[in-house]
């Protein structure tokens, strides 16, 4: 078998394939063969490099040369110059937009590496069930530093200075939260990790707990020291069995090493962690509901104040932070607040993990610095919209968030900009939609979720959201009026202003943001009784074009409700009263005679 000395990696991502990367491979093969190098150099297609704008990409290994915008006819020069003579083809190298220098190694391209992994630093890198691997990667060094070299005030000051804000969605400054909890005196205080991740499509916290559980344990210990708490609780949903399993292993190992328990690092500080399981109610992500659930009560929120920092778990001062927030803490302590606060935007520091999903080529878990634009996320990291379709919207913040549109593509993503754009950061779900998504149906989907998850304690959320959902249902059925659109807006505003907790106060966001950004689409549903995305079944009508229909009877024979009639070899007709819009006829028609109107 051949022992290759060099490899040519050609991007086979969707974007690069569209710009002829397959032809590049062919030409490289042919050229190697012509030079009799086919046994020394291997050409291989790879997945997306995430640099689609400058594609197609060809990377030469082992010297890591990165060629951009390569054309099939460049194959000859790459082989003749680079492979044979060892000279880089300068004109194909990436040019730094600022200093106009050619950069050959992708490691030095600031532009190329859009992602920066801080919270996910160990995910996919260490064995989560082996504490030694965590220790070898600076694990528990931060808590060692805190316990042996720092005072509680210094720790809080460092976290404040870092500018870290809560990654669960609200974005409250973490250092200030710690400070408040530290100033409330009591015989017992608690540190709680909120691992009740409930947004549809969000799995950042699960990934961290499954990939790097010790980082959360270490951060909670630091948090305990800072506010004077000796007990930690992790509230995690029972639907995350693997995360629970790995946390249990991690806690056990930390105890064996003496990193949890009494007199940690000989400092006299005691701290231990227990798990509390949730039954998976969305509202339990809200601090007060979460605390009630941990106490064995119904998972219902209560009015704030008192805040958990004053009276939380069992009436004692309690600090609640989200998993991702905690995952940032050890590295902030080790590298310093002034390192962390240089990343991100003025008011949102650091990075954010997003679960990138929907109609996008590279669905994945990504971590990007705050201030990155949606365009960079979608087109560079995400590799663009699937099947080359048109971008329509991106939903952030889950059921509490909203939809951003084309006009927001170049808005830097941070807490404040997302709120200004009518959405929110949320916990980090990011669902990309193309022109086959109906925005009224999307709003309805999220409302259905909220109605299902509303705890029922306050009227605006329990009744109001149900009414919102009914109006949306009416519109998608084709029975909506313009008055309904006004009613949606008014009702949404009332719910926002009067609901008890964060769930209710934000639940109308999907409706409001789609009304603002896709008003025409609502009007189209109401006035024209039309859904141009082709999602609302009630508004669809299947029609046979008599000019194309040859009367083969294939559609009529396959219609499950016998809605199609017609003589053999004569154009057929669909009875729209009977039609259930299942689409079986379109699939069977070989003459493209059936269309949706």
């Amino acid at each position: 078998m051949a022992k290759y000395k060099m490899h040519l990696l050609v991007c086979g991502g969707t974007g690069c394939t569209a710009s002829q990367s397959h032809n590049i491979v062919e030409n490289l093969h042919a050229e190697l063969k012509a030079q009799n190098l086919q046994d020394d150099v291997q050409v291989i297609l790879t997945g997306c490099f995430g640099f689609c704008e400058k594609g197609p990409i060809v990377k030469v290994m082992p010297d890591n040369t990165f060629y951009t915008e390569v054309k099939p006819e460049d194959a000859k020069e790459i082989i003749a110059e680079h492979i044979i003579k060892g000279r880089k083809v300068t004109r194909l190298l990436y040019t730094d937009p600022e200093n106009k220098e050619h950069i050959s190694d992708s490691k030095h391209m600031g532009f190329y590496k859009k992602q920066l992994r801080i919270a996910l630093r160990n995910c996919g890198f260490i064995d989560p069930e082996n504490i030694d691997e965590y220790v070898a990667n600076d694990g528990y060094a931060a808590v060692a530093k805190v316990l042996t070299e720092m005072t509680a005030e210094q720790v809080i000051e460092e976290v404040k200075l870092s500018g870290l804000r809560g990654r669960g969605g609200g974005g409250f400054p973490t250092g200030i939260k710690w400070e408040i909890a530290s100033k409330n005196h009591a015989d017992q205080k608690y540190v709680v990790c909120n691992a009740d991740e409930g947004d549809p499509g969000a799995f950042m916290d699960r990934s961290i707990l499954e990939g790097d559980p010790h980082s959360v344990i270490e951060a909670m210990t630091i948090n305990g020291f800072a506010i004077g708490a000796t007990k930690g609780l992790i509230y995690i949903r029972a639907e995350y069995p693997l995360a629970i399993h790995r946390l249990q292993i991690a806690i056990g190992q930390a105890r064996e090493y003496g990193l949890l328990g009494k007199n940690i690092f000989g400092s006299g500080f005691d701290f231990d962690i227990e798990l509390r399981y949730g039954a998976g109610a969305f509202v339990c992500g809200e601090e007060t509901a979460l605390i009630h659930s941990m106490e064995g009560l119904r998972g219902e929120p209560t009015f704030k104040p008192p805040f958990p920092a004053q009276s939380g778990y069992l009436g004692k001062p309690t600090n609640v932070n989200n998993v991702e927030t905690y995952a940032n803490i050890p590295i902030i302590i080790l590298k310093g607040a002034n390192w962390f606060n240089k990343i991100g935007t003025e008011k949102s520091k650091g990075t954010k993990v997003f679960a990138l999903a929907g109609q996008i080529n590279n669905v994945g878990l990504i971590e990007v610095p705050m201030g990155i634009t949606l365009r960079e996320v979608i087109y560079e990291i995400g590799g663009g919209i699937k099947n080359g379709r048109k971008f329509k919207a991106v939903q952030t913040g889950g059921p509490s968030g909203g939809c951003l549109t084309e006009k927001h593509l170049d808005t830097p993503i941070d807490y404040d900009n997302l709120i200004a754009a009518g959405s929110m950061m949320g916990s980090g779900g990011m669902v990309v939609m193309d022109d086959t998504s109906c925005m009224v149906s999307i709003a309805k989907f999220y409302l259905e979720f909220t109605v299902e998850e509303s705890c029922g304690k306050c009227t605006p959320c329990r009744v109001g959201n149900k009414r919102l959902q009914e109006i949306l249902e009416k519109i998608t059925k084709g029975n909506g009026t313009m008055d309904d659109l006004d009613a949606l807006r008014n009702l949404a505003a009332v719910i926002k202003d009067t609901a008890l907790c964060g769930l209710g106060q934000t639940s109308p966001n999907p409706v409001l943001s789609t009304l603002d950004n896709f008003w025409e689409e609502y009007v189209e549903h109401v006035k024209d009784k039309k859904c141009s995305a082709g999602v609302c079944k009630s508004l669809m009508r299947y029609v046979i074009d008599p000019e194309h229909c040859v009367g083969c009877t294939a559609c009529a024979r396959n219609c499950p409700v016998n809605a199609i009639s017609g003589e053999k070899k004569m154009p057929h007709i669909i009875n729209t009263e009977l039609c259930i819009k299942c689409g079986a006829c379109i699939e069977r028609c070989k003459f493209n005679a059936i269309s949706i109107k």
Partner: protein
Amino acid sequence: MTQIKSLADLKALKGSIQEKMDTRAKGNREGLVQVKVAMATCGIAAGAKQVFDYFLTECEKRHIDIVLTQTGCMGYCHAEPTIEVTVPGKEPIVFGYVDTKKADEIIEKYIKNGELVEGIIPVNYESVKEH
């Protein structure tokens, strides 16, 4: 397991583990090929456990010494199951869409002969470790 009672204890432990890991990664003669399988819930659901077991049994059967470990989410949901293979002296390579057939190809071609196979996922992030 011994208890870690001081900063010095922690540093000593870190040093000894790192030494072991370095031997694996840096590619001394006796360095072994390292295979990491991304095994978060989603990876396992996509078949990572079967791939892990396949490497375990097949490498033993074929007398290839590798260091096989599970790890968390690598982030490439679109290409699960994913694995990372580090051949001593070379950069780690991530392969996506790995089923047992692909695993066989990776063992026979890449691990044994250094020949790349299709399904490479270019790493597109920078970690705080090198920041």
